[in-house]
């Protein structure tokens, strides 16, 4: 067999559930986990004679995302009916947008390793209504729960610009971060707020000739793990299939596969010849949407700095590591709180440590954001500066924040005092303790003074002894200086 190289090509369709107050075309509240068919009305049940009324908030949210994706916003868009019969679809058509999506021709920037980024093209973004759910728990019959029917979904379709499973996952995570930043979706994977359908094929070069394998669409994936895994699995499967059959991409040989999580394989669902004719046509019950300039500008003004941009800026401006910047910008509220603490006078790196080591931990425990901990940016800045000023140790600072969270009304001076958090920096007092430690540990002292391999380790041992004797209150910087002077 001759030379063979290949690369995988992936485009993604993503459905994002928008967190609007009500459903896409009726007044029902969105639902998760409620009793089956308890969040329904004649409209989302598709009863005879009902008419849909468009939810303005869903349109605003969708346009906001489309703008964040740098899409061109259509001047004029409309609603279309997509027809297919399925028990979870009460009208047997779905209201969607066919040939005039509200957004098209944009891109999303995704982070790669080492602070590099990559642009992935966005073909289109459009709004549609979700279907209900079929339940198969009643023996010979299936049951239908229509609580989800009519929930607003934003469908985003990317260009086939991704070239690895890892990139696909990164895009999904980045999009999750983006819609959360914009406040348009909770993007909770457990609740099915984001669903993915990757379109995957390979470009294979064999003996100098290039072949493209038939495109496979994997349906309805609802976790980052499964999304990434399915691309990997499909990559191998398509390679094997190509080597066996030599089949290449052609008219009408795109297939649809599902994910079998138990066996970790994709399974054939539908050959393209069986693809349904959706008989799209404009929904006569809804009026077309024209985007007025002022309205669009109003939406545009609600755009915030996107997470990836913010991450890069945090690295540049605050000299944080890419990793730290990533952690701080994962949630919009954390990033904004961080900047407020810095604005209140905290040193960026120190503030970052405080927030990531203790702030986020506390917030997580309480199920709130750092901004909601009852600790002000000024408080954080003070503690951060107290560390830099040698008043607190890093661990003392963490402790101080924890205590402040428990009792927000107590001033830091009292917290420091009551818990002996203030570091001992008095050289005279510390010298006495150091001398005692030197006397008590001749072996270690010898290791240090001999300057051998064990020197460094022995020095930290002695430092540790001093810290122990002072119950952690000694300023390690001062102690080290004394040790250096005495043993140097």
């Amino acid at each position, binding site marked *: 067999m001759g030379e063979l190289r290949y690369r995988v090509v992936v485009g993604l369709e993503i459905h994002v559930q928008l967190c609007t107050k009500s459903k896409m075309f009726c007044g029902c509240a969105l639902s998760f986990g409620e009793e089956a068919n308890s969040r329904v009305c004649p409209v989302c049940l598709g*009863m*005879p004679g009902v008419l849909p009324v468009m939810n303005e908030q869903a349109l605003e949210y969708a346009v906001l995302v489309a703008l964040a994706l740098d899409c061109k916003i259509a001047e004029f868009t409309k609603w279309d009916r997509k027809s297919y019969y399925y028990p979870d679809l009460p009208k047997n058509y779905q209201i969607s947008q066919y040939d005039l999506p509200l957004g098209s021709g944009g891109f999303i920037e995704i982070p790669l390793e080492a602070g590099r980024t990559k642009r992935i093209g966005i073909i289109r973004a459009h709004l549609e209504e979700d279907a209900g759910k079929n339940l198969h728990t009643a023996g010979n019959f299936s049951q*239908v729960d229509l609580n989800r029917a009519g929930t607003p979904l934003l469908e985003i379709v990317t260009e086939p610009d991704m070239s690895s499973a890892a990139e696909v996952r990164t895009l999904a995570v980045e999009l999750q971060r983006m819609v959360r930043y914009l406040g348009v979706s909770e993007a909770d994977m457990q609740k099915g707020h984001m669903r993915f359908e990757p379109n995957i094929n390979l470009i294979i070069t064999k003996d100098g000739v290039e072949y493209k394998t038939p495109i496979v669409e994997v349906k309805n994936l609802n976790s980052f793990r499964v999304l990434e895994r399915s691309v990997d699995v499909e990559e191998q499967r398509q390679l094997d299939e190509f080597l066996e059959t030599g089949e290449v991409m052609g008219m009408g040989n795109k297939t649809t596969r599902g994910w079998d999580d138990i066996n970790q394989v994709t399974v054939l669902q539908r050959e393209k010849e069986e693809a349904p004719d959706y*008989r799209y046509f404009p929904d006569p*019950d809804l009026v077309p949407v024209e985007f007025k300039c002022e309205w669009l500008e109003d939406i545009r003004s609600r755009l915030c700095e996107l997470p990836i941009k913010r991450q890069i800026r945090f690295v540049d401006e605050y000299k944080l590591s890419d990793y730290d910047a990533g952690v701080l910008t994962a949630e919009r509220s954390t990033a904004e709180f961080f900047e407020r603490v810095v604005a209140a006078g905290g040193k960026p790196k120190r503030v970052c440590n405080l927030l990531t080591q203790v702030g986020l931990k506390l917030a997580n425990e309480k199920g709130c954001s750092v901004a909601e901990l009852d600790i002000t940016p000024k408080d954080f800045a003070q503690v951060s500066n107290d560390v830099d000023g040698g008043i607190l140790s890093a661990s003392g600072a963490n402790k101080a924040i924890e205590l402040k969270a428990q009792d927000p009304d107590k001033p830091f001076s009292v917290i420091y005092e009551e818990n002996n958090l203030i570091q001992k920096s008095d050289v005279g007092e510390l010298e006495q303790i150091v001398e005692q430690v030197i006397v008590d540990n001749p072996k270690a002292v010898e290791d240090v003074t001999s300057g051998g391999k064990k020197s460094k380790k022995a020095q930290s041992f002695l430092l540790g002894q001093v810290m122990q004797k002072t119950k952690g209150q000694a300023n390690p910087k001062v102690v080290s200086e004394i040790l250096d002077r005495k043993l140097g």
Partner: protein
Amino acid sequence: MQSELLNMSCKELRDGIAAGRIKSAAATEAVFGAIEKYEPVIGAYISTFEGRALAKANEVDAKIAAGEPVGELAGVPVAVKDVMCTTFGVTTCASRILENFHSPYNATVVEKLLAADAVIVGKTNMDEFAMGSSTENSGLKETVNPWDTTRVPGGSSGGSAAAVAGRMCFAALGSDTGGSIRQPASFCGVVGLKPTYGRVSRFGLVAYGSSLDQIGPVTRSVADCALMMNVIAGRDPADSTSVDEKNAPVCDYLEKLDEPVDKLKVAIVPQFSAGADEPVQKALTCALDVYKKLGAEIIEVDMPHLDYAIAAYYIVATAEASSNLARYDGVHYGHRTENAGDYVEVYSKSRAEGFGKEVKRRIMLGTYALSSGYYDAYYLKALKVRNLIRGDFAGAFEKCDCVMMPVSPTTAFKIGEKIDDPLTMYLSDIYTISANLAGVPAISIPCGFDDSELPIGLQILAPAFAEDRLLRIARMFESNTDWHRKKPTIVE
């Protein structure tokens, strides 16, 4: 006394009831007396609500006795076509598939009737899902023409027209997708108005062709039609296609009704109207003479695309219908087959058993027109024709106040005469369809009889949202003729 009561106009009755001179209960009892007498022959109703109606009548009478304010249709017994949802009784659309369907909500127009203190006596028969021109496509029962019980009442609102003509209510609501109010009104010698698309809320009207459907009144006079419009017209937030009050305000249609339109200019389309039967053409000529005597100027206009109206209509309407009727699948409500092996069979068998022949035919036609590969040639082409027809009307209305033409090429035909020939049946809609395609209002008023003593209707079409002028133009004719006072022999 009873027949005197039954022959009153809605307005006379309402005024009498509001003044305490007449009891709504008496009028309602009279109506149910008429139903007892004529309904076994005419068959206008799918369901009647005697107990409910009398209770409402008594409630209105009590309010009046107590000096409380009452609505614009206080105590007036009316009927509703069984295509509008009501929380009481069933809403069948004259289809087996919805034979036992109980709606959880009221159509907006039903709410408006109830708020106006109307007494709803029953729901009228129709062609199944409003698809037809004779009411013979009802899956539930037969309705005959009160003027000749061997003939059809027209359709699809045949039950409403027959009930109004047969004195089994004082007014009724119908729905008009391609002539379904105007043609039965003309066949039954009553007044029928299809308002401008968007003038009356469609919420709760079971959809046939959503971009064409419009609810309107069937009455025994133009004044009653105006009164009914006062109650049902207006923007409804639940119907996105209903029109903003700011752009096209609803007015009091009764206020200036008796003011003739000054310097009235009437347009006719001679070649187009020439396709009608001779008695129909003659009646049209006579009607134009009446207007001439009233000082109107008659002009001829060319509306070249009207010839394509039927073709365009049967594509647009059936395409929309194929989608609108997809929900009747036996899964969520309505008829479900008893012998399905899997869910696909639940669909196919429930629908095969539940829908009648004409409904199936139109679903097939519409599905075909929307199918990939045919969409451009059929549906898109039909939309273009529709725009050209709109253009024809826009051009005509630059030169005139209204267009007049026949309602139907024939008078009421024999039961069974056309039922096996769908194309001939479709052609009988030729004069009514274009108003739906263009979205403009059109009224049918009685304007004569043929040799068999069958009523003939005059159709008047006006610019969008000009219902007030349209009603005034119709009223000019009515005040100078007696056709609308003629009664079918069955109720003499």
